[in-house]
């Protein structure tokens, strides 16, 4: 342990290294604080929306919840609120929560014309991406590793100590010790603020642990790379330049190139198409015989086939039937649209198999349930809720039952979807393998250093 103590002192004696560690710690703490503030603002917004929606509903119920109330009107004017609260880990990896809506109201009309509404965001603020702990981990922590590792070997050489060090007894574990000490320091600077945040936000224990594990693997990858490059270069300047080059390529160049390729290869125009197609079906219904609409509607809803037939120009049951028929008509486009989104997500994950930065991003946000998959899961829960709403109103509308104040009390209530975070296994394996590989390569190269040095010394 005293050897590790000595390593610690050695690192902290370098002003640059100590500065980098303190900087990382402060930024990590700030990021945790900022992430918590984001999730608290979102929780507060959800509460405000719930209050606003409740007061809106009360007004509607007062007007339309009459003893002889018509469910058609009630359903038309009643908006049903859904919301997607941030997970307890969202503070660490805000992900897309800054641009995706986390509250949405739906009513008995066609779901597909309501599902893709956007939130009022300020796009200029969203542009650079959120400042959260995942950002500090993915972008900044590698820089701290680079500062601590780039002159690991060359620094000793430049100080004229390298030969001496390698000839000392116990030099066998030297590089592993140096590596481990630096690795642990960076990890501590990063993980302590996160641990504090975890205690505050109380996510499931294993999920929090998963966060720390991902960080540990990602840092191990960079530490291994750091040692490898440090053992290869002659001067500390070359070490710094080489490692920074790797960092630029892995965090800036390759991910943006991959994104361009994926988004160009997998278009998602079906979203627009399905919206346009659905409108034609729904509005066309006004000009088609009602029987046509009902015939299609009854295919999937045979239970209402025997209800009183519609006479006259307008009836709510016909109105809601053609909205549902509109949704059903675009089901293939919806499936294609969803498939294209899923494909984009899948290919991003695959690019993580070769890009540790991307793998880490995928892992963190999947675990925090703040990625595109999370938004799609929220949309699924809205669709399920919309179905509940339909089957709640249909008996009133089709059997022409009065819809009273008491029925307003019985409206279906949305249940937020459960914990959606998971471990992206492929990415985990990829980052673990990358970390292992780089650590092995780095250590092997560093050990050869001793051998080369010894043989050269022997030859002198």
């Amino acid at each position, binding site marked *: 342990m005293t050897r590790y103590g000595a390593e610690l002192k050695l690192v902290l004696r370098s002003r640059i290294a100590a500065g980098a560690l303190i900087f990382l710690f402060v930024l990590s703490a700030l990021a945790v604080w900022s992430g918590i503030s*984001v999730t608290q*603002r979102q929780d*507060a*917004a959800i509460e*405000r*929306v719930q209050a606003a*929606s409740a*007061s809106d509903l009360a*007004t509607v119920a007062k007007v339309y919840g009459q003893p002889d109330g018509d469910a058609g009107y009630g359903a038309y004017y009643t908006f049903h609120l859904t919301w997607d609260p941030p997970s307890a880990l969202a503070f660490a990896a805000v992900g*897309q929560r800054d*641009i*995706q809506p986390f*509250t949405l*109201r739906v009513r008995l009309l066609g779901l597909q*014309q309501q599902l*893709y509404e*956007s*939130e*009022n965001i*300020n796009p*200029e*603020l*969203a*542009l*650079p991406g959120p*400042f959260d702990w995942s*950002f500090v981990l993915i*972008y900044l922590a590698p820089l701290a590793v680079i500062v601590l590792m*780039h002159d690991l070997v060359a620094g000793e050489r430049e100080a004229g100590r390298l030969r001496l060090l390698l000839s000392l007894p116990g030099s066998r574990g030297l590089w592993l010790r140096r590596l481990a000490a630096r690795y642990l320091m960076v990890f501590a600077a990063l993980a302590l603020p996160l641990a504090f945040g975890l205690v505050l936000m109380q996510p499931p224990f294993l999920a929090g642990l998963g966060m720390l594990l991902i960080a540990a693997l990602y840092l191990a990858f960079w530490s291994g790379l750091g040692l490898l490059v440090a053992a290869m270069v002659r*001067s500390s*300047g070359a070490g710094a*330049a080489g490692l*920074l080059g790797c960092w*630029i390529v892995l965090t800036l160049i390759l991910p*943006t*190139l*991959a994104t*361009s390729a994926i*988004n*160009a290869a997998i278009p*998602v125009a079906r*979203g*627009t198409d399905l*919206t*346009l197609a659905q*409108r*034609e079906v729904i*509005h066309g219904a006004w*000009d088609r015989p009602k029987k046509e609409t009902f015939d299609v509607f009854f295919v999937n809803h045979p239970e209402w086939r025997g209800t009183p037939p519609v006479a006259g120009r307008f009836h709510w049951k016909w109105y809601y039937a053609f909205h549902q028929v509109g949704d059903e008509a675009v089901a293939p486009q919806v499936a294609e649209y969803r498939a294209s*989104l899923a494909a*984009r997500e899948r*290919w*991003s*994950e695959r*690019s993580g198999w070769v890009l540790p*930065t991307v793998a880490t*991003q*995928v892992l963190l*946000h999947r675990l925090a349930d703040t990625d*595109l998959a999370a938004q799609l899961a929220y949309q699924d829960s809205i669709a399920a809720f919309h179905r509940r709403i339909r089957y709640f109103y249909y008996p009133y509308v089709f059997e022409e039952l009065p819809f009273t104040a008491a029925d307003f009390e019985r409206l279906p209530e949305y249940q937020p979807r459960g914990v959606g975070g998971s471990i992206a296994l492929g990415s985990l394996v990829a980052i673990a393998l990358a970390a292992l590989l780089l650590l092995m390569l780095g250590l092997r190269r560093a050990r050869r250093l001793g051998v080369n040095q010894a043989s050269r010394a022997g030859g002198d």
Partner: protein
Amino acid sequence: MSGATIRIAREEWRALARSRVAVLAGALLVLLILTATFISLQKQAAIDEARSQYQAEQVEEFYNQPDRHPHRMVHYGQFVFRPLAPLAFFDFGVDSYTGDMVFLEGHRQNSANFAEARQSSLMLRFGQLTPAFVLQTLAPLLIIFLAFRALAGERERGTLRLMLAQGISGRQLLSGKLLAHAGVAGAILLPALVALALMASSAGASLAQAGLMMLAYTAYLLVWTLAALLVSTLLPRGRDALLALIALWMVTVVLLPRGLPELAAATETAPTRIETEVAIGRDLKSIGDSHDPDDPYFSDFREETLARYSVDDVLDLPVQYAGLVSIEGERLTSQLFDRYASEAFARQDRQGTLVRNFGIASPLIAVRQLSMTLAGTDLDSHQDFLNQVERYRYGFVQELNRMQAEQIPAVDPGEDPRIDASNWREIPGFSYVEPDPLAYGSGRIVATFAILALWLAGLALLYAFAGRRLVWIAR
């Protein structure tokens, strides 16, 4: 410029050309700019084609609707698509974060949907490969990598004192290095500028906008060149200069641009879409409820209307009263839409101003703003699009309401009254007028250029000072 200065610059170029890493990095960056330009041009062409095709089809669809009650057409509505500005390929700005399609109908204001960022994986947040991204984020890194040894390296090798002893003045030396590295920055910039110039002349974009954009990026890269050389002069070791410069890059290019928006978002609570909708509904109710026969606002409206037409009963009006009520109702709702939208826009502007004011500390924030504004992809141009869309929505809805008032019989209209489909063709399709950034953003453009000029002047001053004291520094 003295001969010594040019000699030093030439020597520096020769040294860079000899360094395989420098040549490779430079080539890589140029390749990236070319790739980014190519990809972005293709993306712009694809977006342009898709949006204009959708737009044309939508107008046709609207015209092809059968005879209908005009109110049906109010809800059939119109889809509008936002066209991209000609220079958008250079910097897509907020376009990926704002929806490009808006559905317009009566008495509702729908959001712009299907933003690219909402339909992409999180990887998009690493950045988008555009010429702007390469120049704003990566080019400074290349400049740093090529320049951090410029002076510190001479010092480490001991050649600095040698040169000074040989009678080369500090000023000559530093201006030589500046000349060399400004040349490098120029070489980085060249392919992007050529692409910009080509596009500006062919795509009908404003040459003034393209020119100012070039000027902004030139100033930005010069800021980084000066900063890199200054740090290389002041720090004794190349490694230290590199780390200090990377730290500077980290703070000004990555950290501040991310942190400041967070601060801006935290300072002001933005109401969600639902809260706004509920508030608008409530305000509307407090003005008047057209469905309530005893509502004071609409009773007054009825009396006024009767007086205007000098009749005693709404059935005696020469027009359909319900149509008039629709017109009045739409007027009231739209007023509220405008009020809430301008509040939201004002809030966004305040947040943007906050970021920009702190942005004095980061030349990136300045150049990013300039770049988006001049490319026609900034927040203001999006807001302007939404404003145009709302004006168009109001116009065509009121036109349909007028058709209802004038053409649907007030008495005995029958069960299913409709008007002739030829009426739809009287409603022109949405035609987007691209806002002129040099008009609406002139104040900001000047202010942002002033920030860049301030950076340049400050760094140049320090650099000149360092040149005079170089002998002392080199000791």
